[in-house]
């Protein structure tokens, strides 16, 4: 790898810069992926969807949404994290896209974000 004695420092510097550049971009990519927003958006959307589908009108369900609030805060996400309209649950924990899951029941549903208690309240009303 290293050829001449005089060039040793230069060689080391070049290799260090290349290695740092390559691996820092890989590390950046991995950390972006590993912040969990992709996975948690899908998990929460499907969890909320299944809860709505298995509920009966008049039920109120509290789910632990601490991780969701934490990820949204890390990503500086503003506005609503979870919404429901037209039988579709939409979860967005970062400022880029969201995950949607369609439910098969036809209830009126209200989702309330209780950030203070790190909960999400799902209120299932009657038929639309």
């Amino acid at each position, binding site marked *: 790898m290293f050829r001449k004695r005089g060039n040793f420092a230069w060689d080391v510097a070049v290799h260090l810069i290349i290695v740092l550049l390559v691996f820092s971009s*890989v590390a950046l990519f991995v950390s972006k992926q590993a912040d969990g927003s*992709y*996975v948690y958006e899908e998990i929460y959307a499907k969890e909320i969807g*299944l809860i709505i589908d298995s509920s009966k009108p008049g039920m109120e369900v509290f789910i632990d949404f601490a991780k969701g609030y934490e990820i949204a805060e890390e990503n500086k996400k503003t506005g609503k994290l979870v919404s429901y309209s037209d039988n579709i649950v939409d979860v967005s924990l970062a400022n880029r896209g969201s*995950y949607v899951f*369609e439910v*098969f*029941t036809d209830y009126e549903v209200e989702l309330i974000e209780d950030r203070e208690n790190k909960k999400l309240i799902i209120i299932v009303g009657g038929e639309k």
Partner: protein
Amino acid sequence: MKLFYDKKGEELISFYEILIYLVICVVIVGGTTFYYLTDVDVRKQESGIFYNQIIDCLIDGGILREGFLDENFDFFESCDISKKLFDNKKMYVNVQFLEGEDEIREPVVFGNYDFKSHCEYKDGGGISKHWSECFIGEERIVFMKDGELKKGKIKIMAASNNEGNRVK
């Protein structure tokens, strides 16, 4: 190629070194992407929940609810089920009403008819992960016909291929 040589024309970084870095990057990026984008598959659970919702809707304490033997009863309206997923061919339901081996009324069938074969083959597991997931069962019922109580059963096949979507 100038990028890889210094002013004196000496090689700064070899082709093989670049190749090694590339392979490492591809493996890490590919592995991470695969790990974090793996689907959370809830279709089996969803078909089970759907099955239970149908049971709750049709039967009350073992007795078939009134109106369900009428030919013009509206399954979606009566059971608070949205028609959208059935129109989009992401779900399937097949309910048979039987007295002995005779059908009391026409089966209630909606959604993607292909799912019936998915359900029948290997009990819904199928050989492809893109096949729907199913929940099949039957429940004993008591129903009123011609002014007298009769015993029967309903067979239900509930299938789902409802996967969520990422929206950009």
